[in-house]
Structures are given as structure tokens and as C-alpha cells.
């Protein structure tokens, strides 16, 4: 993991030649996942929203925490591409390999950058003395 002063955002973009990569951290799994979602949205350059609020409940079950993270972010990406939905209020609970939660957001009018997929490239959630950290590579 890289050595630098961490911004309060919970994520920072790290160098990658072709794609996009984030270092994300959080005091617990829930914070880590939410910061990863915020980081991913920041890469997409989203702007102009509609006023109507949208709400949905999610339940994801996977075989480990890394898969849970990929599935969670993939779901947000799919909602954005297919339904133009951007969730800025994310409330989740993670127990082992299960995630459940509530997403609140709105419709987006413009997205300037595409993310094709969330990859498993060297994906490993690390437990540190300050919580959790993970590097995520996005195919763009």
C-alpha cells in the first residue's frame, strides 16, 4: 500500500497506465464499501440531475468480501448505465458475505466517462490498524 497523507474523502486515485485505479479505505467494511462507491462515481464525471428522488433496497450474497465489493459496485454501475440512476445516500450493513442496504438517489442527465467493469485485478481487502484498505482497478 502507498504511503501518503490520506484525504478525508476515503479514496484517492492512484496511477494506472490504461485504466483507472483507486486506493480506498474505511474504518469498517461498510465505510470501505461506501467510500469505494463514492470513488467510483467520482471517476465517472457525472453532472446534471433530475429532481425526483429514487429509492431502492438491495441484498447481495457472495462467497467472500472481495466478491461482495465487486458485485456491489457492479450493481451501482449497471443501475447508472441502464436506468441512469446515481445514488448519493447509501446505507448498508455487511455481515460476513452478505450485504443489505438502502440506496437513495436521483436520475442523471449526463455522464462523461465510461467504466466498463470493476476488475478483480490484485483485489484484496487488507485489514490495517486503522481499518480496511483496498486497491480497485476499473476497466475504462
Amino acid at each position, binding site marked *: 500500500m502507498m504511503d501518503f497523507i490520506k484525504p478525508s474523502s476515503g479514496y484517492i*486515485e492512484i*496511477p*494506472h*497506465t*490504461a*485504466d*483507472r485505479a483507486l486506493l480506498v479505505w474505511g474504518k469498517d467494511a461498510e465505510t470501505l464499501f461506501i467510500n469505494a462507491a463514492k470513488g467510483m462515481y467520482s471517476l*465517472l*464525471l457525472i453532472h446534471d440531475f433530475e429532481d425526483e428522488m429514487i429509492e431502492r433496497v438491495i441484498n447481495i450474497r457472495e*462467497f467472500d468480501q*472481495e*466478491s461482495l465489493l*465487486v*458485485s456491489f459496485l*457492479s450493481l451501482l454501475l*449497471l443501475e*447508472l*448505465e*441502464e436506468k*441512469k440512476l446515481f445514488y448519493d445516500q447509501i446505507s448498508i450493513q455487511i455481515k460476513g458475505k452478505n450485504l443489505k442496504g438502502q440506496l437513495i438517489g436521483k436520475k442523471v442527465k449526463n*455522464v*462523461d*466517462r*465510461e467504466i*466498463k*467493469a*470493476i*476488475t*478483480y*485485478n*490484485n*483485489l484484496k481487502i487488507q485489514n490495517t490498524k486503522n481499518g480496511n484498505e483496498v486497491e480497485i*482497478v476499473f*476497466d*475504462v
Partner: protein
Amino acid sequence: MVTMNDFHKITGFEWEIPRKTRKDLRVGIHVFASQEMLLKGLKDRSFEQAMNAATLPGLVGEVVVMPDFHQGYGFPIGGVAATQLSNGVISPGAIGYDINCGVRLLVSSIQFEQARSQIEILANRLFQECPSGVGAKGTISLTKTEMDQVCREGSRWAFKHGFATQEDLELTEDSGCLEDADPLKVSVNAHERGKTQLGSLGSGNHFLEVDVVEEIFDKRTAEAMGLNTGSVCLMIHCGSRGFGHQICTDYVHDFQMAIQKYRIQLPDRELVCAPLNSPEGQAYIAAMRCAANFAFCNRQILANSARSIFRSVFNGKACNPDLLMVYDLAHNMAKFENHIIENKQIRVCVHRKGATRSFGPGSGDIPDRYQETGQPVLVPGSMGSSSWVLVGTQTAMIKSFGSCCHGAGRALSRSQAKREISGSELRSRLQGKGIFIKTGSLSSLSEEAPEAYKEVDEVVQCVIESGLAKKVARLRPVAVIKG
């Protein structure tokens, strides 16, 4: 960490990382690059990823790395790896999320001097009428039944519906259709993402480019391709859109469990794979072929739209505004092919990720028109630089599983390019050089600046010096349409 000491020099353009370099390597790595490119490549994880790729079960020969290599995810971009059918695997990450991302070149008989005054109008029309950008919907919306037909038929579907000519099919890799595609192996999410995107370009490094044939290096081969000095051409670079992205996402997810079932140990989870002869492997192959067929059809629909625009723009201004096919090829795909390994011909599954085929004369897998010359190899440069038309060789069949480079290859990260280059200044600079730029996002344009890529001429020089291809023609861009 890979260092220069890990490389054994074969020639000035070929290098080897021996199998013994790391304990878990199953084969060595053959890199096509100049020493300067190699040194630059040591700055990212390209070669570490190539070594990780060399741990896949059932590999034969060597993992091959093309000179346009750069760091990707799991497998490096510009990587080629072949696995044998009996004990080999297929790895979706070694093909990429944009399955059958590829390039198509069409040529007209219009001379640039005749067309010069219309190029800006042409660029505007292409931008307006060929959907591009993030999540762009295509020109055709498909029902579930039609989507299944596109999955099975590829460009043949376009032909049946009047969007293609017989010649288009003949001059597309695999005639624009991989057999044994099975839509039942594709998820509902993938179907949903694909059904509205046929006939769309997408975003990122995908583009439509109007070029002029600037120089011919091999007159006989150029004639076979219909290329004449000064002719106006159109290049299309795109793939299977959200449909392919979702298929790869689904199978990379599913194969996380498959590697446990088949007790496969890998250094990177993005390389997950399944035995070629397993139910999981067979399911992915059938789904990958659906995405490949979708991509062939997608480029065909875009080509058909471009043809209409050319006819409309040049009607009465050029004697024949038709766009004729040169070739359409894939650069993210797995193919079953015959290759000679240790003096024996064997059938292997060749993974190419950011690498094209470069089959030489006499190959049974290339169109009749190119039997004497070898297949066209299309190498687009960056927005402001030349693109190249090369031709495949027998040497490529021996050295690289009949493969060649697919472009210039990135040199700068997208964030660095964006920091250093302004989109509006870049557009002005390129327009000053006579290249019209149409884009939906100036912010994303800077990420695709020429400075963000390697020099395509140097990449081409490597493959020429190594014998992987021969020069046919150099193209100069005059208009670029990006999402």
C-alpha cells in the same frame, strides 16, 4: 519486481524472459520491443502481468507480448497466450471486458482533393448520426428474439436485414460470425445492456476516423485491398459495448468459484479461468461468441450508417461515393486455431488481448482475396498520428501464434494526460493540423491525446523488423469522431 536483468536479448527487437525466472511460470515470455520501449515498460506492471499470465494451466509455446504493450488488469494489453485443448484453460480476463473490440477499414475511390471542402460536414454528420458517448443507445433497438439472432448470426443478421453486402461478410474475420454461440449462456443483465446498443460507438478510445491514404509501400498488396494514394478511407474502432462488458463481468465472477473447484492456483484473481473442456469453460466460450457476434454486427451497422452519410455528403461531388470493405478484425478474443509447436501441428485456444491476428499467405482462415498476400493487419495510431495498414506473414505464424500489435499502446495514464493536456487546446492544435475533431466530452478528449500514446511508427517498426507483418500503406487522419 521485473528488471532489465530478467530479459535475455534475442535481437534488437525481441527479448525473452526465461521460464526459470519465477518458480510458478509454466512457459517463458517473448517480448517484441526495442530496448527503449522495454525500459519504459519497466515503469508499470506490464511485465509482472505477463509473468502472471505465464502461470495459466496448459500453456504452450511462450506468452507473447507485442510492442504496443502496457499494463492492463490481470493480463497485459498486447498479450497473446495459447492453451492446449487437452489440459488448457480459458480465461475471460485474458480476453478483456470489451469482447471482440476490433477495427474495420473501408475505402472509397474519392480523392482527398475532391473531398477536402466536405470533410467538416462529413465529420459533423458522422458525429450526429452514429451514436457515441457513455451509455449511448444504438440506431437499432432489438427484441429478445432479435437479440438472440444477433448473438447467433453476427454480421449475417445485418446482411439479412439489408445492412451489409456479401462482400462485407467475406472481408470480415470469421465472416463476421462465430459458430456455436449460445444466447442461453448469457445473463439477463447482459441481454438488457445489449438490446439497445447495436449500432453505437461507445466512448473511451473508440472512434470513427476519416483518413487519407498518404503513402503506399507495397503496391500489389495495396491494390488487392483497394487502397490508392490519396483515397479517402473510414476506420471504425469499437466492440461489443455493455453486452460484452457484462458477459465478461459475469464469467470473471463465476470463475472465482471454478478455480476452487478445479484447484487452480493463480497469482491474480483477474486471471481466473476454467478448463476448456469443463462445463464452465464451454459456457463462457458460447457466451463470448455471442458478444463477438454482437461486436461484428455492431461495426457492420456503423459501417452501413457511414456509407449512407458518405453517399449523402458526396452526392454530385464525387463520381463514386461508395465505401468498400478492406477488412474487419478483432483484437480482444479467444480463437481455436492450428499452430506448429515444437514441430507438431496442434489445435490451441489463442487468447489475444489487445493483439490482432496476422495470418500469412495461404492460411485457410483468411478471405480468398488475401490468399496470396496475407491478411490485412490494421494498426490505428493516436488521434494526431498516422495509422498503418500492414499484412500478415508466415513468420508471425511461427513467432507469435500469427499475431501482431493492435495500435500504438498507451504511454501516459489517463489522469496524467488529463492533468497535462487541455481538451480544448488539443482540439485547436489538431484542427490546426487539418484534423477535425468531434467529441461529446472535451474532458475525455484530453485522455486520448497523442502524447498519451506511444509513437505508432516505432511500434510498427518493431513488428516489421521482427517479421510479424509487412508495410502496405500509411494513413493520415483528417477527421476523428469520439464518444
